[in-house]
């Protein structure tokens, strides 16, 4: 297992999937790589097999105020230093592949992001609500913020 090296990571992503990831330097403290949503499982496999990095700290989702048609999703890993994978999904059909088959700890994170932002996870059964009540009818709380704030 080698120590994490950003350039070697990008080369391996290109070997495995054909397109390299781009380095995004907007976040201090973490090495961030911008990848396509369908590269996610391959990239996580590279992290695990080559760099022994499997500790998933969190899955963050956000919607920028000036880009209402995109949801950004970040997977934060940790191995000696923080490594973040950044993806952009369309708000109309946000879809990601679930990784709970080989990383059961991601279950709670996926459920929370699914109920808060309306992201649909393929490869697993339904995502039951984690934090919101069972009879919540108002849709994902983080989408459509301006209307909610005005109330």
């Amino acid at each position, binding site marked *: 297992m080698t120590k994490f090296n950003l350039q070697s990571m990008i080369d391996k992503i290109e070997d495995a999937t054909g397109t390299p990831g781009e380095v995004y330097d907007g976040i201090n403290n973490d090495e961030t790589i911008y990848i396509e949503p369908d590269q996610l499982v391959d990239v996580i496999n590279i992290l695990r097999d080559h760099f022994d990095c499997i500790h998933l700290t*969190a899955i*963050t989702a956000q919607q920028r105020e000036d880009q209402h048609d995109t949801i950004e999703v970040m997977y934060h890993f*940790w191995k*000696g230093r923080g490594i973040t994978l950044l993806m952009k999904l369309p708000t109309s059909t946000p879809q990601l592949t679930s990784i709970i088959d080989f990383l059961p*700890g991601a279950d709670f994170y996926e459920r929370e992001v699914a109920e808060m932002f309306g992201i649909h996870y393929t490869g697993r059964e339904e995502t039951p609500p984690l*934090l919101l009540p069972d009879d919540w009818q108002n849709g994902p709380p983080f989408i459509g913020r301006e209307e909610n704030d005005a109330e």
Partner: protein
Amino acid sequence: MQNRISIPIGPQHPLLKEPLSMMIDISGEKVLGGSMRLGYVHRGIERLAEQRNYIQNVLLIERVCGICSHVHTTTYCYAVEALLGIEIPPRAQYIRALMCELERIHSHLLWLGILAKHVGLETIFMHAWHDRESSLDIMEAISGGRVSHAANQIGGVSFNLDKAQAEMIRSTISNLRTQVEGLLNVIETEPALHARTQGVAPVSAEMIRQYCVVGPIARASGVDIDLRRDDPLPPYDQLEFKVITHADGDAWARTLVRAQETRESLNLCDTIMRDMPDGEVLVRAPRKVPPGEAIIRSEAPRGEVFYYLRSDGSENPARVKIRTPTLSALSMIPAQLAAIQVADIPVVLAGIDLCVACADR
């Protein structure tokens, strides 16, 4: 084949300090498995934080959890200061670390009382919570509140320590060390505690990695992670301390790790008081934060706390994402329940040291 029945535990139950709903399947005295539902203490803090300015958020974030409130505000303040590009004075860094260690002591003594009560040794519970009052008295005398400290400000801390307070801290820590050593002696030699916790619900290091568990639970299974050493916030990069690990991974190892960490925290408090530099404690910070994103991690009493903060140039943050350590420990509970007896359920729950308010936010 005995009948399979399901017993509900929660949301309100004498075993639990905070509401959590579990459905446990048992057959006779054997536990077969269980499922869990969170969300009874969900207050939507990430969403509320977007509607308040950065200074109000310090006090909102403090109320994510009652036991580890200071570590949450410390991580948030370091994230805002990273976006602002300011560095706080060294004395403020040391005072923040002192409050973090005092909080770790009070949290571990609280946990010790809960574990002893669940096992049936109520005298240890009384003694542990009595000793915990000493650490709460220190925090009240220096910051003004026992549990809601309001110690952190953006740009430093809100109080300074004079000579009389420093002397009071040293003498109280010294008394507390005597008491904690007495408690450690009892824990390490009490046969009833051994019988209830040794061999119960062992967790392998591989399971820890798969469920992304952090904190004392991981260290009790031999996984050597401690963010105070691996990704230190100042001043932990200048302080020397030991990281306690054990290899067995059962409830007894989890007990030992937390109990011995209390001793290490007391030593750290002494080191911090000895090395604290002089100077001011608060620098004035601008109210508007320039656009940017920051990630800060720190070590709470229960494990890794992670903050992602994004600002858009206004006085309110654009996104605050909080990750708390108990969330992944809760996801491991159904797997841990798979091979124990009914009488071991309290020991397993106490060994995880639940903080459901942290997990629900």
